[in-house]
């Protein structure tokens, strides 16, 4: 196991600090992708690090440290969404990702339509899509973190991609082409 993790497990502040500093940009960027909100991402990154300190004894070194961070961060976000929905002050994802869009525009970065489509998806569909198709985690791993069966994760990813396709209007031409073909037959 990495020396830093070993020292952190023994309660060394500096080892923990170095570990977090090294992984902070990765963690915030992951959270930014699943929350689509830079402020929430930073807030959740701090929450994730706090949980990490409390649970470091549970980390067995079988997976990468970043993978372990991703699993904690994912759960923290799911818990936050659940709490917000219970409090009934859920504003909906569409309002949330506007801030990220605004950040892009303020930096003269071009906003991607796929991000728009991704932002419109509910978080329980968006998270597995990102974890599967961007980070390359398996359905089993995602299912374990989200407390779902691998089959459910697979179907959510499949349906999510279909929604993204619809949103991006991919395949509309082909579909109309097939309909036209059938009509002429």
């Amino acid at each position, binding site marked *: 196991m990495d020396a830093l993790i070993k020292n952190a497990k023994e*309660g060394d*502040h*500096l080892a*923990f*600090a*170095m570990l*977090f*500093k090294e992984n*902070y*940009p990765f963690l*915030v*960027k992951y959270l*930014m*992708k699943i929350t689509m909100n*830079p402020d929430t991402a930073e807030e959740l990154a*701090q929450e994730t*690090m*706090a949980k990490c*300190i*409390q649970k470091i004894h549970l980390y067995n070194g079988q997976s990468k440290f970043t993978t372990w961070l991703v699993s904690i961060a994912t759960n923290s976000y799911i818990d936050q969404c659940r709490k917000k929905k219970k409090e009934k002050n859920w504003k909906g994802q569409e309002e949330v990702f506007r801030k*990220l869009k605004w*950040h*892009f525009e303020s930096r003269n*970065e*071009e906003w*991607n*339509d*796929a*991000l728009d489509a*991704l932002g419109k998806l509910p978080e329980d569909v968006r998270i597995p*899509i*990102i974890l599967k*198709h*961007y980070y390359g985690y398996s359905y089993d791993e995602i299912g374990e973190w989200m407390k779902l069966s691998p089959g459910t994760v697979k179907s959510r990813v499949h349906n999510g*991609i279909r929604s*993204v*396709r619809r949103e*991006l209007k*991919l*395949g509309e031409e*082909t579909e109309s082409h*097939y309909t036209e073909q059938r009509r002429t037959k």
Partner: protein
Amino acid sequence: MKKQKVIILNSEEQNKQDFDAIHELHEGLNKIDQFPVYTPNLQWFEQMVVEEQQHTRRKLIRDLSVFFIVAFIIISGMLVSLYQMPTIFVIVQIITTIFIASYTSVRLIKKATRNE
């Protein structure tokens, strides 16, 4: 045969469209990865770790104190009732058993319904 050919073409086309959608998603998410993230300095992280460890220690002490106080009250109550009012002791035991059994069943049923 002709029908089968159309289905294969559809599925191929769908796979291609899925691939295109995933490719677009990759491009968008890559842009987020290029987003500059401000990383605080090492002292900030160290301070956060120290505060969190202190907070965890305080929470542990508080939780343990509450646990021991509650345990002391319950055990004292049980012992008093066992020696002074045995009937009440038996009734409390029966009620507790029934409550735990029904609570567990309700939880399991709810969990099973949620998973369906």
